[in-house]
C-alpha cells in the first residue's frame, strides 16, 4: 500500500469497493480510480496499442497519455482516463490495450445543455484564475468560473504559502467570497472544451458520476454554452517529460503529478524515487515526497544545478528486471550509474496549456527562456493569465490574475527533449507507441513540417491529443533537422480540449425531441382514426387510414374510389399560406409567378408556378385574390418557409420600393378539400345559406361565409379533377368543422383520405408534385405548364433563363404519362427508362428518363405512371422499356393527363349542374 497518513483530501472514514481487471479493491471517497489503484499498489493499468507493452499512470490528471480504462459498471464507457474517473462504490473497470469498446445496450442517462451569459468567464481555478474571478466579481461583473477538477485551487497543493497563509486557506477564502456573490457562478468538475468566436465557450459539467446515488432526473452531464464578454484563460501548464530509453514503463511519471497525487489523495507513488529534471519545479516535488517518507534521488544535468541534486547526469534508460507488472526497477545514468528505484519522475519544463487560446486563432510564440511555446499576440475579447501565459512563478500568477503585469522573473529552463539511447525504445507519444525512431524515419523520408511528422508518426493524435508529447515532438524534429524549434512551431490545437461523449453533445435532441414533429390541428383525430403517418419535412401527415385487414394498396384504392364516386375529405392544412398585402401586391406576384396574378379578380382563384432565377420550377399552388390589395398565396407543404423567404428576399433586397407586406398564415388556416361528385351535397348542407350551384359558385372562385358564427372560407379548387371545395377555417375551429363535415357527409359515405390517395388522384390528372415529379432541373415548359407562363409580362423571376441554349434543347426531359403494357404491373418509382428493347446493351446504357410517380388506379382500372422522358412530348404513342428487377417492362408513352382529359368531372354530375 502506498497511501500515506496525513496527506490528501480523501475521506478515510469511509471505504468504497471497486473492481479492476477482475480484482476487488478498496478506496475512499475523493479518490480517482487512478489514485485508488496506486494506493493499492496497482501500477500496470493497460497495454500499449501497437507494441503491447505494459502501461501505467503517467500523470495525475487529463494530460495522462497512458492510464486508459474501460468502465463496465455502472455503465460501459470506453477510453476513460483512470486519473479523471471519480471512484464510486461498485465501480467496475478494466485496463485497455489502446482501444475501447462501446456498450451494446442503450445509454439511458440524461444529458442536457444550459446557456449562460457573463461579462467575464474564467477558465481554471488555480491561483491566477481565482484572482481573475475575484477581481472581476469585485468590479461588479457577472462571472462564471469553471474548473475541471472537483475542487478549486489548481496547483496550489497546500504546501504553497500565499502571503504567509496556507494556500488552502487562501483558496477556501477566495471561493467563499465568490460563492457569496450572486453574480458569480462557480462550476467545478467542468471542463471548458471549446472556444469559438465572439466569446463563446463550451464547457462540460460532470454532474453525477461521482455521486453514490445519482438523482434520477438530473442530467449526467451538461454542456454549458457560455457567452462571455471577456474570456480569461487560466488553465495552467502541463509539465513535460524528458524522453529516455524505455520511458514507458509503469512507475514513470511526471514530477508534479506525483506531488499532486500525494497532496490530493495521500498516495506516495514510490518509496525509492528518482527524479530526473532540468527544471527547478521538480525540486519542490522531491522535497514533498521525501517529507512524506520516500527516498528521493535527484538527477539534474544542468550545469550548476542547485539544491539537493545528487547527480549531475542524465537518465539514459530504465529497466524492469524482476518486476511482475513491468514497472520500473532501476534507471541507468549516462555516467554508468544504476539507481534502483520504484518510481522515476520526469520534469523537462512546462508547456503553457494554451489550447483554449489557440482554438480562436491565438498564435503561440516560442520563448527560449522558458523553453516553451506561449501565447503571442493578445486576442480580442480575451486574456491568458498565469502558467497558461508562461508565467510560472506564483507571485506572477497572482499578479496576472489581478490584471497586473508581473515583475519579470529570470528563468532558465534547460531544454532537453531527450537523452541518448535506442531511438526505437524512446517513446514520444506513449499512447500511440510512437518513438524517436519514428520521427527519425519521417525526417529521413523527406518530411520537414511538424504536421507531416504528426501524420507519419501519429504523435499527438491519441486520446490525450499530445498534451505532453506534442511540443517534444516538435523539439526532437527540430533537432533532427538541425533547425530551431521556433521555425517549426507546434501542430494545431483543436476542440475539444478533452474528449466529450457524443451523447453529451446530443443533449436532449434525442428520440422524440431529436427534431420537432409538426402536427395539424387534427392530429389527435388522425391518430384516433388509425392513420398511418408520413414524414413530410417536419410535418406528420396522415398517409392513409387502413381499415382492419387493409394494407396500403387496399386502403388507397378504397379512398380513391370514394373520392371519384362519392365524396372524400383530406386534411390539407400543412399547405403553406402567405398573406400578401399592400398596394403593390399584384406587382410583386407578377414578378414572382410565371403567370399573371395582377389580373386576377377578387373572389377568384388562379393556379401559379414559381421559378428560381435559373428558370427551374421551385413551387406551385393556388392564389386567392381577397381584394384589390390583398392576395392569399398557397405554397406546397415543403415550400411554406422557403417560399416566404424567397418572397421576402426579393421584396426586401431587390424591390424595397414595393408597398407590400408578407405574413405567414400557415397555421392560421386549416384547409380541408372535400372532393367528389357528392361534395356539393356536403358543402350545401354545411353552408346551407350558400348557393353551391355551378352558376353561383363557379370553378376557381371562393367566398367567405359563416357557419354557426364561425368564419369559413369556401373555394372551388380541385387537385383531383373532381367537383371539389376547399373548406378553410381558423385553426381554433378546425377540429369542430372537420367533425361537422364528417357528420354531414356520413349519409354520402364521406371518406377521409390521406396524402397517398391525394397523390394518386392528382397523378391521374397529370398534376405534378413539385419535388416528386421535379428535381430542380425542370422548367414549366418541361412540365407541360407553359400555359401558365405569361407571354405578356416583360419579365418575371426565371424568365431570361428559358432562352438559354440548354432550355431550347428538344431532348429536354418532359413530363409524360406511362402505361405499362401489362396493366397489372406497377413500376417502382425511380425506375429508369430506356429505348424499347428486349435485351439491354452493355453499359453504359443510354437512359431516357425516370419514373417520378407510379400508382395503381381505381378509376383507370390499371396501373399508370408519370415520368420525365427526354423529348417526351414528341414520344407520345411510342413504346419504351423500363428495367425492373432484371425484367424489361414495355411501357407506352402517353400524355400526362390520363383520367378525364376533357375535364368533364370538375363541375360534378350533369344532373345537378
Amino acid at each position, binding site marked *: 500500500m502506498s497511501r500515506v497518513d496525513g496527506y490528501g483530501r480523501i475521506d478515510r472514514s469511509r471505504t468504497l469497493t471497486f473492481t479492476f481487471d477482475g480484482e476487488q479493491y478498496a478506496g475512499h471517497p475523493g479518490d480517482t480510480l487512478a489514485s485508488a489503484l496506486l494506493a493499492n499498489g496497482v501500477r500496470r493499468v493497460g497495454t500499449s496499442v501497437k507494441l*503491447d507493452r505494459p502501461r501505467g499512470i503517467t500523470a495525475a490528471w487529463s494530460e495522462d497519455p497512458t492510464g486508459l480504462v474501460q468502465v463496465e459498471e455502472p455503465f460501459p464507457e470506453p477510453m476513460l482516463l483512470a486519473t479523471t474517473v471519480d471512484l464510486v462504490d461498485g465501480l467496475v473497470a478494466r485496463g485497455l490495450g489502446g482501444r475501447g469498446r462501446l456498450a451494446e445496450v442503450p445509454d439511458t442517462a440524461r444529458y442536457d445543455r444550459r446557456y449562460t451569459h457573463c461579462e467575464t468567464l474564467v477558465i481554471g481555478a488555480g491561483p491566477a484564475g481565482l484572482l481573475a474571478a475575484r477581481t472581476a466579481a469585485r468590479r461588479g461583473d457577472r462571472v462564471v468560473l469553471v474548473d475541471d477538477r472537483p475542487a478549486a485551487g489548481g496547483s496550489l497543493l497546500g504546501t504553497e504559502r500565499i502571503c504567509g497563509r496556507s494556500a488552502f486557506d487562501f483558496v477556501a477564502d477566495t471561493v467563499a467570497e465568490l460563492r457569496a456573490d450572486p453574480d458569480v457562478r462557480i462550476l467545478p468538475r467542468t471542463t471548458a472544451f471549446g472556444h469559438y468566436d465572439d466569446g463563446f465557450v463550451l464547457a462540460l459539467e460532470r454532474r453525477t458520476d461521482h455521486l453514490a446515488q445519482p438523482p434520477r432526473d438530473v442530467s449526467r452531464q451538461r454542456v454549458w454554452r457560455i457567452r462571455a464578454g471577456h474570456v480569461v484563460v487560466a488553465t495552467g501548464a502541463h509539465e513535460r517529460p524528458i524522453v529516455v530509453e524505455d520511458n514507458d514503463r509503469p512507475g514513470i511519471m511526471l514530477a508534479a503529478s506525483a506531488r499532486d497525487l500525494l497532496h490530493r489523495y495521500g498516495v506516495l507513488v514510490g518509496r525509492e524515487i528518482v527524479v530526473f529534471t532540468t527544471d527547478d519545479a521538480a525540486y519542490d516535488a522531491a522535497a514533498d515526497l521525501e517529507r512524506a517518507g520516500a527516498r528521493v534521488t535527484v538527477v539534474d544535468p544542468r550545469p550548476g544545478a542547485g539544491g539537493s541534486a545528487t547527480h549531475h547526469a542524465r537518465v539514459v534508460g530504465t529497466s524492469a528486471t524482476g518486476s511482475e507488472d513491468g514497472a520500473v526497477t532501476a534507471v541507468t545514468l549516462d555516467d554508468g550509474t544504476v539507481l534502483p528505484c520504484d518510481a522515476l519522475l520526469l520534469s523537462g519544463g512546462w508547456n503553457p496549456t494554451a489550447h483554449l487560446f489557440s482554438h480562436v486563432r491565438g498564435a503561440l510564440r516560442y520563448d527560449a527562456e522558458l523553453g516553451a511555446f506561449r501565447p503571442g499576440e493578445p486576442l480580442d475579447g480575451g486574456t491568458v493569465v498565469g502558467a497558461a501565459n508562461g508565467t510560472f512563478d506564483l507571485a506572477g500568477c497572482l499578479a496576472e490574475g489581478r490584471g497586473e503585469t508581473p515583475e519579470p522573473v529570470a528563468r532558465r529552463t534547460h531544454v532537453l527533449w531527450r537523452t541518448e539511447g535506442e531511438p526505437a525504445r524512446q517513446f514520444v507519444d506513449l499512447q500511440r507507441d510512437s518513438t524517436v525512431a519514428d520521427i527519425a524515419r519521417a525526417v529521413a523520408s523527406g518530411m*520537414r513540417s511538424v504536421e507531416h511528422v504528426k501524420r507519419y508518426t501519429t504523435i499527438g493524435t491519441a486520446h490525450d491529443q499530445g498534451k505532453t508529447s506534442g511540443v517534444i515532438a516538435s523539439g526532437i524534429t527540430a533537432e533532427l533537422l538541425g533547425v530551431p524549434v521556433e521555425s517549426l512551431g507546434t501542430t494545431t490545437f483543436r476542440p475539444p480540449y478533452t474528449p466529450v461523449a457524443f451523447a453529451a453533445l446530443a*443533449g436532449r*435532441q434525442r428520440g422524440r425531441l431529436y427534431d420537432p414533429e409538426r402536427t395539424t390541428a387534427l392530429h389527435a383525430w388522425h391518430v384516433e382514426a388509425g392513420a398511418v403517418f408520413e414524414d413530410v419535412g417536419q410535418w406528420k401527415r396522415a398517409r392513409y387510414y387502413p381499415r382492419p385487414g387493409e394494407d396500403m394498396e387496399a386502403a388507397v384504392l378504397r379512398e380513391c374510389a370514394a373520392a371519384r364516386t362519392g365524396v372524400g375529405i383530406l386534411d390539407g392544412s400543412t399547405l403553406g399560406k402567405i398573406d400578401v398585402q399592400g398596394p403593390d401586391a399584384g406587382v410583386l406576384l407578377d414578378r414572382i409567378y410565371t403567370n399573371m396574378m395582377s389580373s386576377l379578380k377578387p373572389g377568384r382563384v388562379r393556379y401559379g408556378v414559381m421559378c428560381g432565377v435559373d428558370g427551374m420550377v421551385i413551387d406551385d399552388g393556388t392564389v386567392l385574390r381577397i381584394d384589390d390589395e390583398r392576395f392569399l398565396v398557397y405554397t406546397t407543404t415543403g415550400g411554406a418557409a422557403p417560399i416566404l423567404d424567397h418572397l421576402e428576399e426579393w421584396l426586401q433586397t431587390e424591390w424595397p420600393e414595393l408597398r407590400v407586406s408578407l405574413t405567414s398564415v400557415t397555421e392560421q388556416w386549416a384547409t380541408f378539400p372535400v372532393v367528389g361528385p357528392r361534395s356539393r351535397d356536403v358543402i350545401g348542407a354545411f353552408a346551407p345559406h350558400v348557393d353551391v350551384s355551378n352558376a353561383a359558385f363557379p370553378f376557381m372562385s371562393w367566398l367567405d361565409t359563416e357557419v354557426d358564427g364561425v368564419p369559413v372560407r369556401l373555394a372551388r379548387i380541385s387537385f383531383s379533377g373532381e367537383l371539389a371545395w376547399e373548406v378553410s377555417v381558423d385553426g381554433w375551429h378546425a377540429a369542430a368543422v372537420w367533425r361537422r363535415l364528417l357528420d354531414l357527409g356520413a349519409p354520402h359515405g364521406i371518406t377521409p383520405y390521406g396524402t397517398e390517395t391525394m397523390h394518386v388522384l392528382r397523378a391521374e390528372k397529370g398534376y405534378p408534385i413539385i419535388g416528386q415529379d421535379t428535381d430542380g432541373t425542370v422548367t414549366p415548359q418541361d412540365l407541360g405548364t407553359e400555359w401558365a407562363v405569361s407571354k405578356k409580362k416583360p419579365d418575371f423571376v426565371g424568365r431570361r433563363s428559358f432562352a438559354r441554349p*440548354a432550355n431550347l434543347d428538344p431532348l429536354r426531359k418532359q413530363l409524360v404519362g406511362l402505361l405499362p403494357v401489362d396493366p397489372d404491373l406497377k413500376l417502382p418509382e425511380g425506375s429508369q427508362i430506356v429505348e424499347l428493347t428486349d435485351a439491354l446493351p452493355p453499359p*453504359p446504357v443510354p*437512359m431516357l428518363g*425516370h419514373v417520378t410517380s407510379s400508382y395503381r388506379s381505381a378509376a383507370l382500372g390499371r396501373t399508370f405512371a408519370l415520368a420525365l422522358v427526354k423529348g417526351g412530348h414528341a414520344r407520345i404513342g411510342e413504346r419504351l422499356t423500363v428495367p425492373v428487377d432484371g425484367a424489361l417492362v414495355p411501357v407506352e408513352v402517353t400524355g400526362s393527363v390520363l383520367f378525364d382529359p376533357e375535364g368533364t368531372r370538375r363541375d360534378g354530375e350533369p344532373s345537378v349542374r
Partner: protein
Amino acid sequence: MAEQLPEHPDFLWRTPEPKKSYDVVIVGGGGHGLATAHYLAKNHGITNVAVVEKGWLAGGNMARNTTLIRSNYLWDESAAIYEHSLTLWEGLEEDLGYPILFSQRGVLNLAHTEQDVRDSVRRVEANKLNGIDAEWLGPDEVAKICPIVNVSADIRYPVHGATYQARAGIAKHDYVAWGFARRADEAGIDLIQDCEVTGFTTDGSPDDGTARVTGVRTTKGDIACGRVALCAAGHSSVLLDMLGVPAPLQSHPLQALVSELLEPVHPTIVMSNAVHVYVSQAHKGELVMGAGVDSYNGYGQRGAFHIIERQMAAAVELFPVFARAHLLRSWGGIVDVTPDASPIVGHTPYENVYLNCGWGTGGFKATPGIGWCLADTVANGRPHPYVAPFALDRFVTGALVDEHGAAAVAH
C-alpha cells in the same frame, strides 16, 4: 493489440528549390495536384513539372477529408468520372507501391422519407445502367450489413431502406497523397512546398483569344512555365481573381471529427441526408464523421460548433451505441462549392491555363480519376471526354450537372 498501420517506404520526396522554368506548373499540392503530376509523368512522359504548394504538401482538404470513395452518382456525366476514378482506386496500391489502406467496405445511403426512397431507387437504377454496382436494400438488409444502425420504426425519421454500393470504401488520405507525391518525385517532378502563388505573368489578351500565362509569381520568386494547371480547391477563386476570370465558386468551411480508437463496430460506411451525418470507422479504429457545410463563406479552416452538435445528435439517433463514444478532435477544411454541386474542369480564357476546382465536399474520391483526366487534358490541350461535360461554359448554356437533389450527401 490493435491492427498495425503499415510501414512507409524509406524515401518520399526531395525538398528542391524551384527551377527557373517548367513545362507545366501545377498550382496546389493537394491530392488532385499530386495525382495530376503522377499521371503527367506516367501516362504522358511529361516530367519537367513543378507542383507548387503554399503550405505543407497535401495539408489542405486532402489532410482533412473523411475519405469516402464511391461512384454511385446519379447523372451519367458524374457516374463516368467517378467510376473511372473508382476503377483506378482498385489498382492504386499497386500503381503507387504504397499501402494506402484502400478498403472496399461498401456504402449505405439511407432513405428516411418516401421521397428519399424514390430518389434512391432512381439513383440505383441509373447506376446499374451505367455499369456501376448498386442495390436498393430494405431496412432488414440494412441491419444485416450494419447491425448497429437503428432501423426500428419508432424513431423520429425511421430508415425506409438504403442504397448500397459494395465497391465503395475508404482509404488513408495522407498515404494516398504521399504515394502520389513519391511517384511524382521519383519521376523527377519538383514538389515545392511553402511556396505560394501570388500572381501570374501573362501575354496577349483574353478579348481576342490570345491570352496566355507565361509564368507564376510565387513567394519563392517567379517561375516561368509552358502550361498551368490550377488545383487549389478552396482557394481557386483567389487564383482566378488574379487572372480576372470569374467563376461560380463559393468557399465554405466544412467540418469533420473523429472519436477515440474503438474496437470494430461499424463495418461499412453509412450516410444519411435527412438525418444529417455520415460515418465510417477508420483503419485504426476511430469513428470518422462529417456533416454539411457551414452556411457562410469562409477561408478559416474552422466552423461553428452547432454543426458538430447537430451531427452528434444525428449520430446517436441513428447509432444508439455511439452514445458514449467520445468526440476526440474536430477540424475544418475549405471547400469550393458550385451552383450545381459538380466540379468545374477544363479550359479557361487563357489558352494554356487549365482549371480544376469546384469539387466541393466530394473530391477526394475523384483524386486518381481527375489526376488521370487532367493530365490527359493538359498533355493534349483538349478536355478529356470525362471532364468535357464539366466545362465552365455549362453555366452559360444552362447544361448543368445538378447533383444536389439526387446524390444524397455529396461526400
